């Protein structure tokens, strides 16, 4: 493919809409006669609702109804009807199903009124009497009773390979340690919201905050016994989601329920506090035991994972696969057990399992490298994996060595003294640390439609999402490139269930999946355009095959003689004013499954730690990424920068605090739940190393939405060790842990 648009740093095509406020989000679509719902959440973590008194709320003028388990309409019977596309094995939570309380802040009523303020006031007047039962939310004390789930959502450990126990026992150099990762909440800027527009015939248009409209449509149709034609789901913009929008959240269910009952359009928006009432990244403890030869060869690896889940669904994520992807080791034993608590089911959050697993793996490896007296990069080079040992497959491409090389050079790593506490500046101890990581580069099945109208303009569409990652922009680039027309002549549409099918935007696979569908649809259009161009009077392309022409500058021209050309406009004029329309469904090539497909990253970090006060400043970060072909260096860089910033939060700040007496997450707002602020972020450099990959997908591009975060927290933790000589194995690393 010749590149005019692909590979060019391109501003977001939706940037203007976003900064001017014209971009509309799920809670912003206004329709006449809209009613507003406000959710009442449970004060207790476990028990039953003995009595729920809505009379005071209903007395308020302008309050339409308060829905509870007592007055809700009949439900569709089967459990499976409440399963969305991202549901873990188990029995999904059903809002207002009965009087049982399964977790703190469980939605238990919806007050609906003429205005948001009235609804909120009415919600505060609902009186609830509970019958409490003893709850248990204590992760630590339940680790002993962790269990192996019947079915894993994801991250099922491979069978052991080699002789892990013997190899470990006889390894001359060993380390072991428990590494703990806190519970975290996604906290996108935009709160979860659904605006459900009710039409006289009972059909619904649903504006939902979701990472894939098809999931909302499926969920609503199944849960409410409706037909797909009756439910159109629209979600053109998503103000960040990070996984929180993979599953339809309870505000959707409640808004649909209210709209159908009241025969009226209803909006339900959650508050920031309520954003802590559903899924989160599970608290996870990992027990590592590593053994190496004196020369630094990794001989044995054992990883036991204990991760939080709810009592009704078995959530699990890819925590244990990373050792087999990132290190060559002949003797490995992995386990992943779940710790069942009275909490809501955890939920995928940016690089689910990767952020958690790679943190612990990379800290443990750093400890081992230190025990060996080896430079951490040298240690990793020595144990470089040439294949994914979980599946025994070669990599489709892996330029991780180049990431080390370029990252280390930019950072100045060769000047590093291995000795901890060897660099000092005033009160500050300076530490340099590194870690590497990987993230899957998958492709799924998707459809796209391309339409060229007689004015030569192209519209491409697919029911995918843009959660702020730049989908609109990148798809526009791919389409413009394929037809050789300017970006301005291309419109990309997404976020509408009436468009061709696409999967959830998650797992860093949208460019790969939808991008491939877009390209295929545009390729089909090329064929049609060439045929039309050949019909143009005296066409110089009559004899030409697709391989012999190029599409560029709005023209179709002969590769061999570029002056021989027909413009797309001229070609279109042969189509009697009609548009060309092509819809395709693309799926991964068969040979993909013969390979392990991953993006890779190496991250180098400098920290300054105040020796007396324990405050940490991350002064420099260099992240070198091997992500295949970079479609848009600008949005790509933003993804990595965002990952680095989040990694700083993971390492030092993010922690949803559970009060085990109350069974409740307590720091449920952004004053108390800390994420990095500008003042926490200093020099950050992003490098994309060149990587060719003809297997991952026809574009050669790997996803970049998650790779940026995975290696940051361990690199920081390792730098803190280098600075202070203190190994903190429990995140976040706050100043008290360094005093």
């Amino acid at each position, binding site marked *: 493919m010749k590149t005019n648009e692909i590979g060019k740093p391109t501003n977001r095509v939706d940037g203007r809409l976003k900064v001017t406020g014209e971009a509309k989000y799920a809670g912003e679509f206004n329709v006449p006669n809209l009613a507003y719902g406000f959710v009442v959440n449970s004060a207790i973590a476990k028990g039953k609702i003995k009595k729920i008194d809505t009379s005071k709320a209903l007395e308020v003028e302008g309050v339409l109804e308060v829905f509870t388990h007592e007055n809700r309409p009949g439900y569709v019977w089967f459990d499976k009807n409440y399963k969305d596309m991202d549901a873990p094995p188990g029995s999904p939570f059903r809002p207002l199903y009965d009087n049982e309380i399964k977790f703190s802040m469980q939605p238990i009523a919806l007050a609906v009124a003429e205005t948001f303020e009235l609804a909120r006031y009415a919600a505060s007047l609902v009186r609830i009497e509970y019958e409490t039962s003893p709850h248990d939310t204590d992760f630590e004390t339940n680790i002993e009773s962790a269990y192996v789930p019947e079915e894993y959502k994801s991250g099922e450990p491979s069978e052991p390979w080699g002789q892990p126990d013997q190899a470990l026992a006889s390894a001359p150099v060993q380390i072991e340690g428990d590494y703990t990762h806190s519970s975290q909440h996604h906290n996108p800027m935009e709160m979860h919201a659904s605006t459900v527009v009710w039409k006289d015939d009972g059909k619904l248009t649903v504006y939902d905050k979701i990472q894939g409209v098809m999931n909302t449509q499926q969920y609503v149709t199944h849960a409410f016994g409706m037909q797909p034609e009756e439910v159109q789901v629209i979600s053109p913009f998503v103000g960040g989601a990070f996984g929180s929008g993979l599953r339809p959240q309870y505000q959707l269910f409640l808004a649909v329920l209210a709209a159908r009952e009241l025969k009226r359009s209803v909006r339900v928006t959650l508050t920031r506090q309520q954003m802590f009432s559903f899924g989160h990244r599970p608290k996870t403890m990992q027990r590592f035991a590593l053994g190496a030869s004196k020369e630094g060869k990794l001989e044995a690896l054992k990883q036991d994972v204990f991760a939080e889940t709810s009592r009704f669904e078995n959530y699990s994520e890819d925590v244990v696969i990373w050792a087999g992807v990132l290190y060559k080791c002949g003797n490995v034993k992995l386990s992943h057990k779940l710790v069942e608590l009275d909490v809501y089911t955890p939920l995928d959050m940016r690089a689910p399992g990767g952020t958690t697993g790679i943190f612990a793996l990379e800290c443990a490896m750093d400890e081992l490298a230190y025990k060996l007296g080896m430079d951490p990069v040298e240690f990793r080079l020595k144990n470089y994996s040439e294949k994914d040992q979980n599946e025994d497959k070669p990599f489709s491409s892996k330029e991780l060595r180049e990431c080390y090389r370029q990252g280390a050079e930019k950072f100045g790593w060769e000047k590093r003294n291995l000795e901890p506490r060897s660099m000092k500046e005033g009160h500050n101890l300076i530490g340099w640390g590194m870690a590497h990581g990987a993230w899957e580069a998958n492709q799924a099945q998707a459809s796209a439609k391309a339409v060229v109208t007689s004015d030569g303009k192209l519209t491409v569409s697919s029911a995918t999402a843009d959660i702020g990652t730049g989908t609109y922009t990148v798809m526009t680039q791919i389409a413009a490139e394929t037809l050789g027309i300017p970006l301005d002549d291309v419109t990309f549409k997404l976020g509408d269930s009436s468009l061709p099918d696409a999967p959830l935007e998650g797992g860093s696979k949208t460019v790969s999946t939808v991008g491939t569908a877009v390209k295929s649809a545009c390729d089909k259009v090329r064929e049609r355009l060439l045929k039309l161009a050949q019909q143009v009077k005296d066409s110089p392309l009559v004899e030409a095959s697709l391989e012999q022409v190029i599409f560029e500058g709005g023209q179709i021209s002969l590769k061999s003689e570029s002056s021989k050309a027909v413009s797309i406009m001229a070609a279109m004029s042969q189509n009697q004013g009609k548009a060309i329309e092509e819809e395709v469904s693309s799926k991964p090539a068969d040979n993909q499954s013969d390979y392990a497909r991953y993006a890779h990253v190496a991250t180098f970090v400098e920290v300054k730690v105040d020796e007396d006060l324990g405050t940490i400043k991350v002064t420099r970060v260099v992240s070198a990424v091997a992500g295949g072909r970079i479609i848009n260096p600008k949005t790509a860089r933003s993804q990595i920068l965002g990952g680095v910033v989040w990694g700083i939060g993971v390492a030092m700040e993010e922690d949803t605090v559970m009060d085990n007496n109350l069974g*409740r997450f*307590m720091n449920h707002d952004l004053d108390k739940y800390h994420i990095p602020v500008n003042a926490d972020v200093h020099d950050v450099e992003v490098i994309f190393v060149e990587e060719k990959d003809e297997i991952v997908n026809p574009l050669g591009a790997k996803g970049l939405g998650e790779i940026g975060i995975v290696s940051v927290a361990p690199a920081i933790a390792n730098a803190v060790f280098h600075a202070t000589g203190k190994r903190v194995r429990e995140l976040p690393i706050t100043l008290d842990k360094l*005093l």
Partner: protein
Amino acid sequence: MKNFTYTRANDVANAVDEVTSEKGSKFIAGGTNLLDLMKIQVERPSHLVDITRLALDTIEETAEGGLRLGALVTNADTAYHEEVGKRYPLLSHAILAGATAQLRNMATDGGNLLQRTRCYYFYDTDTPCNKREPGTGCSAIKGYNRDLAILGTSEHCIATHPSDMAVALAALEATVRVTGKNGERIIPLFEFHRLPGDTPNIDTNLKPDEIITAIDLPAKGFADRYTYLKLRDRASYAFALVSVAAALDIDGDTVKEARVALGGVAHKPWRIPEAEALLKGKPATRENFQKVAEAYVQGAKGYGHNDFKIELAKRAIVRALLQAKEMEARS
């Protein structure tokens, strides 16, 4: 939010009348704390008296050679005021270590002193909290208390006062001017906030009918040697785990006068004049600063998650005094 009536006061007397006209009345100034608390039903005033139009928005010289900060001067205008910056840089630094630029533009000096605790439980009406609802119990003592107090606590409440500004004012020995039904009175800043005792619902010694009209700064501003050191979980937009307002008056190497106030450790800015006096006439050395630090945490008590604050407070005091000492004295 609970329904309320609203009025705008046109002078101080009218404000006092209005606030006493109905039980459950409250003043509103910048609203940056009160409105947040109203939205989540922690504050439920029935009547709001808007005082933002009162003529209390200037900074003036006092007869004693100090400055008078009107209660309605914003935190931003105070911090960036030329005279404040020149004569009371400790105060400017403390203010600028708090909140964000946007908040400081709205927040007033009077409101800052009366902002309420940031204890997690106080903010969640579904949990027991003696400060919010007397008699319900304190969730924090046996719950999550990382941010909470180590000094002057009671079995009923271990909340901290979150203001940075008040810590500097305590070190500077500022006084608070208030007016109520019975006229005007002056409360030393250090006596303005109270300890929780068995009535943690009452934060300060201000009476319900009283309005703050001004904060007076005495002439001595320690502009040569001072530090406001704020330790927190991120570099900005976070309340102090521990903060120290330190000020020194040094002659040669000998301390003439020292001031130390701690924030983030108690229900009020924490000052121990006897401990400060340990430095009087002594050389300004790390060893002597260490003694002051030890004296400040005498009797401190941790509740688990916040145990570290005892050690942190000591180290912070020493660091702040060393920094103050090492400042280039202005000529």
